[in-house]
Every structure is written in structure tokens, then in C-alpha cells.
């Protein structure tokens, strides 16, 4: 995962992350987690019992006066513990798979909730927010994260087995058991740090190089650049740059890994010493008959078995990674004021209104965070039922204005109200808008679902009426399974629609929203990618139904705005600075004004050989 600099140097932090991870596990699968945890403990118990009974068996066979009954007894216990341990392992593997699947579903839900629940998008689309979401989504593709989801159970089993061994050793000589424990814990930290370096892109200088290399390889292998690569012959150049970047990155990373490995030398020496002491004492005791052969067998296995306490294997590393990613997402959520664990999905709030809405904007000033003001001093009132066209040059802030009306961003100054209520604080009034954006939502669901999305899939919504008005019924009639056809080639029975066909579906969606109570039809550059006929059909449909709603039409192609009731021109009076309403009125008035609008119109119309006065 890119830019992941979470080296578990601080074990307290690591522990709290692990606890969060366990909370998540118990939240998504409480019963199964209890079973998995119990099985993990039982597995380790079986291992300990097997260790003890095998020692006793050997002991029973090596005494001078062998008692066959005891030998058979211990063989029976040993066999049963082996069998039980194996059966518990088999069952727990299945349980763990089920828990992991639920965890992944839960994680996806957490991420989705984070992205769609906050009212405004400032924090989500800031640099930090976008990175957080990207990383959380990227984790789902990363094998280390996926591996770590179910790693905690193995960790539990190993730690319990290790503690069992510790108890056995400490029961013999506590002053050997406890230092060994300390030695293995230190070794565990050093191991974890080294493994983190190995699996991590902590080499800060190498990270951007790798990103760049990945970008180049995606360009080369992908479909999007295929034409230009062949046309301009770019393959060799791209490959050369890719190799260069990657080689440089690897050199940095390999160096750091070597350093990390060398730093394990000291803990290893210490452990070696402690083990040597343990064995020396053990042998002395055995030589002086202070421990029996049975105990010797058990104790040697236990001393070696304490390594389970210092174990840092794929289970541990991957679990650490998963826990880190989860805690990062949870921390981001808390900056947004969202709880963990996530609440159940709410039912959509009903839109308790109908009919055309009134929009009032006063003294609006807004700039994206870290940028210059895009809008500065916009005053606008849109009466119910009015059809208003908003025009201006590219980048003038027309789309931004719509985002603000939708309540996505908080204005720096000024107010926006729909029917007198603020869309930011009042989510219900937000639903009074029925938008068709330039790149509108194409859901990989059925055609019917795409349309009824306009009414948030409330039960009882019918798509037929909206489809008939928008012309989408013709599109649906041609689909293999009618309205139930998935509108994505990725799914069986699914089909891809053309731009014009999708346009009709999007319009049907907006009309469904209007039927459900929306009062503003907002069109943002709706015809940018359409051919002539589709564009004409779209505007005809829109104009036919304008009395039911207020219509906002944002465009830079002036051929379509002439039939609006009113036109406002957004622009800045000087060259920089935020935009505001610089001209407004009907088409003829604006042409007569001979200002910005007239100039733009003349430019566009001149190509058709028709120049208006």
C-alpha cells in the first residue's frame, strides 16, 4: 500500500490498533468470533497436552521398571490430544474463512458509509480526505491486508501455546522462564520492525518513484493509451523510463532492508545466550537426576516452544497491517464525526413537499480550500416554475454554483436557500433537486433501478411513467430483458448503452425524482457528449415539462438557452477574482445590451453564417 509509514515502533499504539481490529471482528461476526477464539485456545491447549503426554510417554518407557499400563495410558492421551487438536484446526479454518468474509463486507460498508454519509464534501475531497479514502479502498486489493483479516486467530493460538510453555518452564525455574520471556518479546519487536520494513514502502524517497513506475506500466498495459502509444511510437520510451525508475527505487529499498536485518543481530545474540543458559541448567539438573527423563523431554520442548511468544510470521505482520489500515479509516471517520462501529443504514427521509421550488442566493462567496474565490458576490433569485439558464466561460464557476445549491460545500460567505431552507443543514430539502450532471451516475444495476434511483428505490416507485416521458421506454424496449437488464457489460445478461441512450435514462431518473417531490430540475452541460438529434430530443423533453418544476440549465452552448425564461451570465468583472452575475435578462435584452453574452453568442453563431444584430 502506497505511503504506508506505520512502523510498529510504539507497541502501545500497535496494541490499541489490534484491539480496534478485534472490536471490528466481534462486531461483524459476534457468535463466530467467540467460536473461533474458543477453538484457538482449545487448539493450543491440545498442543500443550500433547507435549506433556508425549514426554510422560517417553518417560514411562525409559524408567528402569517399566509399567506397561502407564505407557498405554499416556499413548492414549497423546493420541487423543493430537486428533482433537487437528479436528479443532480443521473446524476453525472454516469458521475463520466465514469471519474473514464478513469482515471484508463490514469494511466495505464502513468505507462506503464514510464516503456518502457526511453532509458536505469538504473533508472528503480535501487532500487528506481523498488520500484516506483512496488508501482505504486500495487496501481491499492488497494481499497483505486480505491475509491479515483472519490472522488474529493464529496469533491467539500461538500466544496461548507460548504461554503454556512459559508456565511449564517457569514452574521448573522461574528465573529461567521469565528472562526467556523477556528475550523473546524483545526479539519479537525487532522482528516486527524488520518485517515491517520489508513489507512496507517506508523508504520515503522510493515511494514516489514506485508510484511513477506503476503509472507508466499501467499506461503501457492499459487500453486507454493504446492508440496514442502506437501512433506516436511511445512503447520503448515508456519502458525505458519504467525500468530506470524501478531500478533506482529497488536500490534504495534493498539498502534499507539490509540495514534492518543487521539490527536484529543483538537481540539474536541475547536470545542465544539465554537459551544456552537454560539448556546448561537443564542438563545439569538431568545429570544430577533432579529432573526425570519425562520432565526433560517436556522441558526441552517447552523451552523451544517459548519461541511462539516471539513469533513474527505472516500472521502477525499481515494482522498488523490490517489493523493499521482499519485504525486509519476509523481515525478519519472520527474527524468527520462518524461513529465506529457504523450505524445501520437509514431509510431515506421522505420529501415532504412538491411543486416547483424557489431558490434564493444572497451575497454568495466561495472558493475551494486553498484556492482563490471562484464565486464572489453572487445574488440570484429563481422563482418557482422559472426556467433559468446560467452561462459563462469554462471555469467561471457554473458547476460550482450548482454544487453549492446542492449543499455539497459550505459557502465562505452568504446564504443559499431552497424554499427558505438551507440545504446544508436540512438534508430533506436537498432532495428537492433532480440533477443531471455532465458525467452522471451510471449504476451497474437494472434499467428499472437506474430510473427508480431518482426516488431512492422507495417501494412502490414505478419507472414506466418517467421512462415514457423521457424516451427511455424505447431504449428499454430494445434491451434483452427489458427493464430488468443490467446496464453494464460486466454482468450476465447485461448490456452497455450508448451516450444518448444513457442520457434518456438519466432524464427518466430526474423525472422520477420530480414525481416523488423534487422541485428543481438541474442540468449541467447535459449535451456535451451528445449528437445533434439526441441533444434536440433532450431539450424538447425538458421544455415540455417545465411547468412542474423550476429548471436550471447550465451550459456554454448558447444555442440551447434561448428558450429559457431568463438567462444569467456568470463572470468576473475583472480578469481574475470570483465570478458573479454580470448580466441577466431575456435573450433579446442581452443581445441588445451588447455585453459579454452578445459577444459569446455572436462568436458561436458566426460559424453558421448567421449573425444576429
Amino acid at each position, binding site marked *: 500500500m502506497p505511503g504506508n509509514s506505520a512502523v510498529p515502533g510504539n507497541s502501545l499504539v500497535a496494541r490499541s490498533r489490534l484491539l480496534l481490529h478485534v472490536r471490528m471482528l466481534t462486531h461483524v461476526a459476534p457468535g463466530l468470533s467467540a467460536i473461533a477464539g474458543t477453538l484457538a485456545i482449545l487448539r493450543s491447549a491440545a498442543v500443550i497436552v500433547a507435549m506433556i503426554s508425549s514426554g510422560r510417554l517417553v518417560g514411562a518407557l525409559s524408567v528402569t521398571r517399566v509399567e506397561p499400563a502407564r505407557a498405554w495410558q499416556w499413548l492414549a492421551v497423546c493420541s487423543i490430544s493430537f486428533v482433537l487438536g487437528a479436528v479443532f484446526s480443521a473446524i476453525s479454518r472454516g469458521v475463520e474463512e466465514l469471519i474473514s468474509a464478513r469482515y471484508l463486507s463490514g469494511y466495505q460498508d464502513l468505507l462506503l458509509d464514510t464516503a456518502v454519509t457526511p453532509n458536505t464534501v469538504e473533508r472528503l475531497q480535501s487532500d487528506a480526505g481523498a488520500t484516506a479514502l483512496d488508501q482505504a479502498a486500495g487496501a481491499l486489493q492488497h494481499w497483505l491486508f486480505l491475509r491479515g483479516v483472519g490472522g488474529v486467530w493464529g496469533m491467539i493460538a500461538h500466544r496461548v501455546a507460548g504461554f503454556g510453555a512459559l508456565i511449564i518452564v517457569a514452574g521448573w525455574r522461574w528465573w529461567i522462564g521469565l528472562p526467556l520471556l523477556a528475550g523473546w518479546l524483545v526479539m519479537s519487536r525487532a522482528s516486527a520492525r524488520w518485517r515491517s520494513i520489508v513489507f512496507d514502502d517506508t523508504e520515503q524517497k522510493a515511494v514516489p518513484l514506485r508510484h511513477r513506475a506503476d503509472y507508466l506500466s499501467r499506461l503501457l498495459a*492499459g487500453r486507454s493509451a493504446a492508440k496514442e502509444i502506437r501512433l*506516436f511510437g511511445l512503447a520503448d520510451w515508456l519502458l525505458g523510463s519504467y525500468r530506470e525508475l524501478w531500478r533506482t527505487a529497488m536500490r534504495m529499498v534493498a539498502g534499507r532492508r539490509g540495514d534492518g536485518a543487521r539490527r536484529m543481530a543483538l537481540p539474536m545474540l541475547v536470545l542465544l545466550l539465554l537459551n544456552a543458559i537454560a539448556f546448561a541448567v537443564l542438563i545439569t539438573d538431568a545429570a544430577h537426576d533432579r529432573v526425570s527423563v519425562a520432565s526433560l523431554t517436556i522441558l526441552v520442548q517447552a523451552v523451544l516452544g517459548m519461541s511462539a511468544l516471539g513469533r513474527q510470521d505472516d500472521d502477525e505482520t499481515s494482522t498488523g497491517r490490517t489493523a493499521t489500515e482499519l485504525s486509519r479509516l476509523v481515525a478519519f471517520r472520527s474527524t468527520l464525526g462518524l461513529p465506529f462501529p457504523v450505524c445501520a443504514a437509514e431509510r431515506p427521509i421522505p420529501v415532504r413537499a412538491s411543486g416547483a421550488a424557489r431558490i434564493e442566493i444572497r451575497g454568495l462567496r466561495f472558493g475551494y480550500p486553498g484556492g482563490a474565490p471562484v464565486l464572489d458576490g453572487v445574488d440570484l433569485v429563481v422563482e418557482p416554475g422559472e426556467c433559468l439558464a446560467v452561462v459563462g466561460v469554462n471555469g467561471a464557476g457554473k458547476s460550482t454554483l450548482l454544487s453549492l445549491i446542492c449543499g455539497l460545500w459550505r459557502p465562505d460567505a452568504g446564504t443559499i436557500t431552497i424554499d427558505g431552507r438551507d440545504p446544508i443543514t436540512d438534508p430533506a430539502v436537498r432532495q428537492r433537486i433532480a440533477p443531471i450532471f455532465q458525467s452522471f451516475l451510471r449504476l451497474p444495476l437494472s434499467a428499472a433501478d437506474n430510473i427508480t434511483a431518482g426516488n431512492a428505490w422507495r417501494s412502490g416507485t414505478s419507472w414506466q411513467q418517467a421512462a415514457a416521458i423521457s424516451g427511455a421506454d424505447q431504449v428499454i424496449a430494445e434491451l434483452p430483458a427489458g427493464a430488468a437488464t443490467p446496464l453494464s457489460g460486466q454482468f450476465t445478461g447485461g448490456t452497455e448503452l450508448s451516450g444518448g441512450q444513457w442520457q434518456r435514462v438519466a432524464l427518466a431518473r430526474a423525472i422520477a425524482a420530480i414525481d416523488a417531490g423534487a422541485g428543481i430540475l438541474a442540468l449541467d452541460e447535459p449535451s456535451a457528449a451528445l449528437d445533434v438529434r439526441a441533444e434536440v430530443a433532450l431539450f424538447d423533453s425538458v421544455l415540455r415539462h417545465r411547468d412542474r418544476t423550476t429548471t436550471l440549465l447550465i451550459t456554454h452552448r448558447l444555442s440551447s438557452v434561448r428558450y429559457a425564461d431568463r438567462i444569467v451570465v456568470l463572470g468576473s468583472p475583472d480578469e481574475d477574482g470570483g465570478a458573479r452575475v454580470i448580466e441577466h435578462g431575456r435573450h433579446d435584452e442581452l443581445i441588445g445590451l451588447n455585453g459579454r453574452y452578445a459577444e459569446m453568442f455572436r462568436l458561436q453563431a458566426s460559424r453558421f453564417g448567421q449573425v444576429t444584430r
Partner: protein
Amino acid sequence: MKLIRALRLLVSTSVRIAPASSIGCLAETAGVIVSLLNSWMLAVLVAAAARGDVDRMILAAVVLVGQIAVSRVLFLVGMNARMNQLEIVGQEFAGRIAYITATLPTLEPLDDPKYLDQLHILKEQQGALGMAVNTLLNQLNSLVGVICVLTLATAADPRMLFVAAASLPTVLAGPVVARWQARTEAASAEPGRLAQALLGLGIAPAHAGEFRVFGLAGPLRARQAAASRAWRAPMLGLAIKESTLTAATQVVFFGAAAVVIGWMVHDALAGTVGIAAITLSILLVTRLQNVSSEMRAIIGQAASMSRTAGRYLWLVELADRLAVDRPTELTPSGSGLRLSGVCYRYPGADHDAVRSVSLELTPGTVLAVVGENGAGKSTLAELIAGIRTPTSGRVVCAGIDQAAVDPSAWRQQVSAAFQDHVRFEFLVSETVGIGDLPASADSDLVLQAVRAGAAEGVVAAVPRGLDTQLGSAWPDGVDLSGGQWQRLAIARSMMRRTPLVRVLDEPTAALDALTEHQLFDRYAEAARTGRVSGTITILVTHRFSTVAAADLVIVLDHGRIVEQGAHDQLIAANGRYAELYNLQARGYRPTTEPEETIS
């Protein structure tokens, strides 16, 4: 056999690229062998203790302790080497795969449904071959471990081989479980894709508005959760079946082990089997159990490894098969562009996208290609650019037949800006300069192209001019608007100063009035200089405003030329062209009838 080819590919590439690390990886294998001394020395120690042989006990203890250290060091070194190796090899293969895909002569394989799945997997799993190397090394370690364990066990007591044999059911259960897993994967693939797709849409910044305004936040989560549940559903059955089968095979194994050990205990009680042997045997039981699961893993991974490597080899073979061996020398023997009966059908389609198009253009002509969406305009542009090969018919330019020369040589003589152009996130000078790679280092030439493409405004708008990094994902990178990207794409197409043909596809789709106007001026100028230098300019558009600059217009409908002529001729003819033109132009005409609907 596929597996052997896979092994040979992985090992030879691995050794050739990083010989030192390759050897370092073997340290891990050595570590596996050393760690097995564990059990052996323990048995020796216990037996020596039973006999009271202190010297032997000390020796065994020393070896035990030493083994701990040595095996740890070997593992450390080996794992370090393995992680480096898997990345080095992975990246090398990723680069090769990407390069081979990018240098397949034409676009057809990338669109052919026959190849799509494979190509998609290759693209998605570019690091898979690196992981295959990792798997190979793990398998080697497992195999060596298995052999050592079996050797040790047999040395302890030949009857242990029965125990080893009792692990066969576990091995045999492997393919059965693999089949179940594949079936489960197939059943959960689609719901899983849907869950992913819905999640992706929910996170995308572009759709944040729609989800909130339509009140879809909660319902989307519910839908996504339902898809996720459907994804999970087949896993319950799999988990139960897999657990039961595994438990059963384990019971068989440990039951057999109990019987064999019991037999040995009987002999030990009778005095014919020593303490060392029986201790070692008991300690090796768990290792022997792992033998079976490791053998299963080896076999299972071998299959996936040869599948992964096989995909790469398939790509190499495909590239060889599709390679064209035609002359790269161009010998012009005429002038102008001629298309004779050019037809094109997309792979797997049931009708032609371009039907028998014939055209003759003299050098310096400016041609406008109009038509509705799906009429075949962009396909025609790609055919002329030599990125697609006509299924029948000939494309001849300056007397050179496209089918008779190497595709890359043909493309050198063409320049284009496509409708779905790529937003190359390089420096501005590179993004424009790659239009003519050899000339891209010369900033004067790049600036000329920028001017020709009406993109000076873009260069002026970014903080560091030509040296600005594009794409906000990169440090110091900036984002551009759709219109700015398009102007850079057009500037890129202007880098080749005098191509035989220049194709500009839908160049003004997302520009505002002022920029459209400026661009239009530049086209007119480029067309004029083109007339001087002999470049044929082809403008593909459905915006009729651009058509005014052209000498000749062709109207495409369902891949066929239905009208052809100069603008005024076609208007007078009152056919399809006139109808479409008037539809668009009516918005700009003065009229007292605000509502006009099409019939």
C-alpha cells in the same frame, strides 16, 4: 509440459536478472534443513539422559542451541533475498507484459472478446509473476523440508513410512477442495463485482452530489450490503464441506499414527526399540502431518503457478503470431489519400462498422467527416491512422499501400488527436512533445506545436509553464480542466509538422465558445499551411460549426458515406446533412417561435 516450461521461465529469468539474490534465496532452504536438526537432537538428548551419558547430552544441547541461532540467521538472509527477488522479477515481468501488450501491431487483439479475459487478468495481476517466484521458492523450501522429514523419520524407524502414507488422503483431498473453491469463486464472482462496483461509485468524488441529492446514501449502503451478502452466501457451504473433509482426513492420519506408534511402544516395552527412536518418531508425527498439507500446497500452487506463467507465455506467443514482417522503408510514388472499398468489422461484432468507404483526397485538402454517434467516424479515423487494419479494401497514401508497409512506419507519416485522448500526467513539455518523440527535447519545436494547437493559454495558466507536472496525484502536480487537456492533445498532434495526413477527432466537444473560436482559427490556419505543405487534414466532428473550415464534407451513416460534397452543395441538396445542420443552427437563428419540435 506446462509446469516445466513455467519453472524454466521463472528460474531462468530470476537468475539472469539478479543472480546474487537468487543464490541468497537458497539460504532459506538451508535454514529449513538446519531447523530439522531440532527433533533429531532432542531425541539424542533424551536417550542420552535415559542412559546417563552426560557428554552426549552436552553435545546434543550445544548443537540444539547453535541450531536455533544458525537457522534464524539463514531464514533472515533468505527471506530478505526472497522479498527482494520477488519484487525485482515481478517488476521485470510486469514491464515485459506491459511492453508486449503495447507493441501488438494493431488494436484488434485488445478489443477481441477471445483475448479480453486473458489480457484483463494479465493487466490486473501484473505482479503475479513476482509472486510466482515467491511461490516457487516457498515450494522449494517445503519440498526440501518434506524430503528431510521423510528421511529422518525413516531413519528413526521404517514403520514411520506407514504414517507418511496415511497422509495421502489429505493430499488426494487437495484437488477436490480446489474444485469446490473454484465453483464457489465462480458463484460469488458476480455479486462480488457488483459490491465492488457500488463501493467504487460511492467513493468517487464525481458522484457525491447525486447520492446526497437523490437521498441514496442509506439505500446504496443497503444495496451494497445485499450484494456483499450474496457474495458471501456460497462460502458457508464451502466452509462446512472443507472443514468436514479436512477433519476426516486428519482423523485418518492421526489414527494411523497412533496405531504405528502403539506398535512401536509395544516393541519398546519388549525392548527391541530404543528410546531415541521412539522419541524422534513421536516428535516427527506433527511434522509428518504437515508433510501432507505441504504436499497439497505444493501441488495446488504448482497449478496456479503454471497458470500464471502460462498466461505470460501465451502473450509472448500471441505477439509472435501477430507480428508483421513488412518493409519499414516508405517509397512514395504518388500523392493524396485514397480509400478503396474500405470495410471494417470489430472483432466479435455481427455487422460492419465501416461499410465500403471509398474516397479520394488530393494533398492539402481539408475534409470534414460528420455523422451521428455510432456512425463510424472515429473508426474511420483510426483506420486511416493505421491503428486498425481494414477487414477489406485498401488505404493508399502518397502511393504507399498501408497493407504493404510496417504499421509503425505508416504511423510515422500520420498525426492525430483522438476523441478519447489520454491525459498524460507528465511535464507539459513531455505531454505535448511525445507527439514527435525525437523532437520532444527541443523546446522551440514544442512551443511551436503549442501555438499551433491554441494551447498558449494552458501553458500560461500553469505555475511553471512547460516544466509543470500535470496530475494532482504527483508532487507539485496540477489538474487541468477538460478543455485544457484537449488543447494539449491537439498541440501534441501538431508536433509532427508535415505529416501526410492529420486527423482531428471531435476536437471541440468540451470547449467554451471563446476557445472553440480560437481553435477553429488555428485549424483554418493549419489547414492553410497544410495546403501548402500537402498535409491532408481530416476533421471528425458532430458539431457543424467546425465544418465551415473544410473544403469537402462527407456524411457517414451506419458506416456508409451517404452524402459527399462541399458545404454549400449539401445545404442546397436538402438531404441528411442539411437536416442535421439546420437542427443545430436553429438555436442561433432569430425566430418568434420558441418551441420547435422535431417530427
